[in-house]
């Protein structure tokens, strides 16, 4: 197998596992459909903005939950709500699902539960970031080697 075929194979396998393991859902597919020659880096740009949003929101949540005295659960919930929305928009399914659970702990004003969810959100965000960066790298490599990005059903 030449380089392009190998890379394309890797790309297909990697994409398939992203969906199979629930890292992304159909909304991510919709996002890719918005990309074309007029906007060739659209997905990378949106995902990058999403990760920036994630970091900011996770920091907000951590700061609010660190308060020794009274934790402002409304503030935590506001950040989780935002993250839930953004993750839905780009199809980051696992991140979104943690947010759903996270909100119930905010409502219940359960600090321990919230801290556990914060850890989970952080983990899912890191995992997703890693996997999408791999995906984008494979795309770049395929194009650099003169190949085309295969469509994955």
């Amino acid at each position: 197998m030449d380089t392009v075929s190998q890379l394309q194979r890797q790309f297909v396998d990697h994409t398939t596992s992203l969906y199979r393991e629930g890292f992304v859902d159909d909304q991510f597919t919709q996002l890719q459909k918005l990309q074309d020659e007029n906007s060739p880096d659209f997905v990378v740009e949106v995902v990058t903005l999403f990760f920036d949003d994630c970091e900011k929101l996770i920091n907000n949540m951590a700061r609010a939950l660190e308060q020794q005295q009274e934790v402002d659960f409304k503030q935590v919930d506001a950040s989780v709500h935002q993250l839930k929305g953004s993750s839905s928009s780009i199809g980051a399914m696992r991140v979104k699902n943690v947010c759903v659970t996270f909100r119930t702990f905010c409502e219940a004003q359960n600090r321990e539960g919230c801290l556990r969810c914060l850890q989970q959100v952080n983990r899912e965000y890191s995992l997703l970031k890693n996997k999408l960066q791999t995906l984008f790298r494979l795309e770049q490599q395929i194009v650099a080697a003169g190949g085309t990005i295969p469509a994955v059903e």
Partner: protein
Amino acid sequence: MAVAAGEVFASGSQELHVLAVDDSNADGKIIERLLKISSCKATAVESGIRALQFLGLDGEKHSGYNVNLIMTDYSMPGMTGYELLKKIKESSACRQIPVVIMSSENILTRIDRYFFNSIIFLLHRV
């Protein structure tokens, strides 16, 4: 909000200038793209305050840009979509601009005179 925006503009438009207000940068970018694909001119801002500045309603003396439609997220830090709606409807220069508010929360308990004749429809976001 991004998915809903796509449904609003399915039929395309004649160079409408749409102002999209969303505190999520990722969402804002998606909406901008959807609007451009539908042949609209799109400006995305990240807060109600920025939206008011763009519309020329912040007290600074400059002409507002010509905006035909405003699409805004409801729950945003600082100024909510509702507060933005109020400010727009209180302004003689901008009150005729249709405002679409998008929310995943149930905000119908807050319907009042600002909403009446203002909202096109509330879209369920997620």
